[in-house]
């Protein structure tokens, strides 16, 4: 499993929380599960068998992989590499990102990623011209 390769990083996280300061997701939610600290705790619990893959999926997709956390991390840990490895495993297990799947489906059905009627664009054009 790709995540096993990163087990040492998950272990090296000391739960200090320095990574909260510039995480764009955590800053919006103030929810520890969204910070790198929370993610490493969640993945640690997953590897120990205290959580299942389907329980962690949503939280693993709530990350932009921006690496801001690495910049402030007490131990300089490459958190996005761990998150990406977790995502790869999730996809293998049929737990891909529901939002990505929805975007693809929307594109196929309506040619618009948000599933809106493409004609709506014409209304914008009309408004702009008016």
């Amino acid at each position, binding site marked *: 499993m790709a995540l096993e390769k990163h*087990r*040492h990083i998950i*272990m*090296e*996280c*000391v*739960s*200090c*929380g*320095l990574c*909260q*300061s*510039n995480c764009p997701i955590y800053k919006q939610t*103030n*929810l*520890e*599960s969204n910070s790198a*600290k*929370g*993610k490493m*705790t*969640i993945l*640690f*619990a997953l590897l120990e068998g*205290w*959580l299942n893959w389907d*329980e*962690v999926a*949503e*939280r693993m997709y709530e990350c932009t992989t921006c690496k801001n956390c690495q910049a*402030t991390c*007490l*131990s*300089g*840990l490459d958190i996005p590499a761990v998150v990406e490895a977790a995502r790869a495993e999730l996809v293998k297990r049929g737990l891909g990102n529901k939002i990505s799947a929805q975007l693809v489906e929307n594109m196929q059905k309506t040619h618009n990623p948000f599933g809106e009627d493409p004609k709506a664009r014409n209304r914008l054009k009309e408004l702009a011209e008016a």
Partner: protein
Amino acid sequence: MSGTIKQLIQVVGETNVVSAKVDRIAYSRDLTPYFAVPDAIVFPMNTEQVVKVLTLLNEKGMPVTPRGGGASFQGSSLAVRGGILLDLSRMNKIIEISNEDMIAIVQPGVRYETFEHELQKKGLTFPHDVGSHDAATIGGILASDSNGHHAYRHGRVGAWIQGMEVVLVDGTILRLGTRAPRYNMGYNLAALFAGSEGTLGIITEATLKLAPRMPVEATVGAFFKNLDGLINASLAISMSGIDAGTLEATDGYTVKTISDVMNLGFPTCEGNFVGDVQGFDEENLQRKLMVMERILEEHGGEDITIARDEETINKLWAPRLEIDTAIVKVHPGYREFGFAAADPCVPLSKQAEAIREIGRIIRSHDIIAAVFCHTGIGIIHPAVLIDPRNKEHWVAMKKAEQEILEYVVGIGGVVTAEHGFGYVKNQYVRQAVGSIKLELDKKIKKLLDPKGILNPGKMGLDTEERDSDVGFIYKEYVTDQEMTE
């Protein structure tokens, strides 16, 4: 539990109660080896909601553990008895910054650096820069009576509380102090709540004294072949009357590890010194720097560097701050743990001896040690860096912890001077403060929290054990009970 959660949702709203297992687990750790999962996390948005939540939980007799950023070193904000983790981080408004009164009024969830950033725009500072930076909240800093990096110059945070709003366990709102700089009106209860680690009430607002931001500053670094020279230099700087901001030391083993791993080319030494100093103008700063440089030289300081640019400043601070980054490069999977000997304090004249002896004690158990010291104020921070999958390392950490604390008390020092007792020091509390003080503390606790629901299991107040009511991150962890078997 589900009935209580429904009632809590009625008070704070659905988005402010979190009870999914994955999220509860994300709140189960801090730097200590413990794993303590709360039953739910509740985020109040204002004082009124704190009042209602506490009233409800006090009626039910359910444990409530206050939490700010959760950056505690000592298990202080872990829900060791389960129940509700009361997370104040969403009460994060800076209500007012006043240059005229030199105060700020803030909610408890305001983050330290975010606050400083706003103060900076107005030429002010709240100079209690804890090493946990933006992970720390003002509520957590006050409730821990924290000791920032500039505590040498500015002291502990408690003295900077001009006013406070505290919600007591029965929902009563207690207001202490005002915008006026001083009051002397009976017992100083603000000082009691500062450092109470969330065991007596919830801080919902604080009026904080501010200081002017000094316009110029410099960082000074030096290496010493002999730790006595370093400590004497630090003392001479204090005696010179220079109001340095901070004076710090790192032991030679740590300097070498960091230098080797990060390729920094530091000279061989028994200790590294780093400090900073501020001035109200360039001339004032230069005069202080001249004296500091001379003192460092006279006491055997080598490679003395004065830095004003970020890159050199970071290099000078590397011995003090980069051990965690360095260690994982040479020992993958190793890490630091919050243990009970993380923050003792010794008489100033014993600092050199204590840095040496504490390092020796830890290394004598075949584990890696890094030893730091706030040399102006006698606080020593030993760090143990271990492989958590190795049972022997846990045994070594616990033996070293006990020996360090015995040694420190033996030379006239104290068990804890920065992080407080939290959970990890429960079994050392009586020995540290004596039975008379501990029993008095218990009476104060009983008066303010008769059912003992506020942050239970901490500060030796309702148990003098650790390891007995909590889970562990690593199955290899060796409990106190196993140590005595």
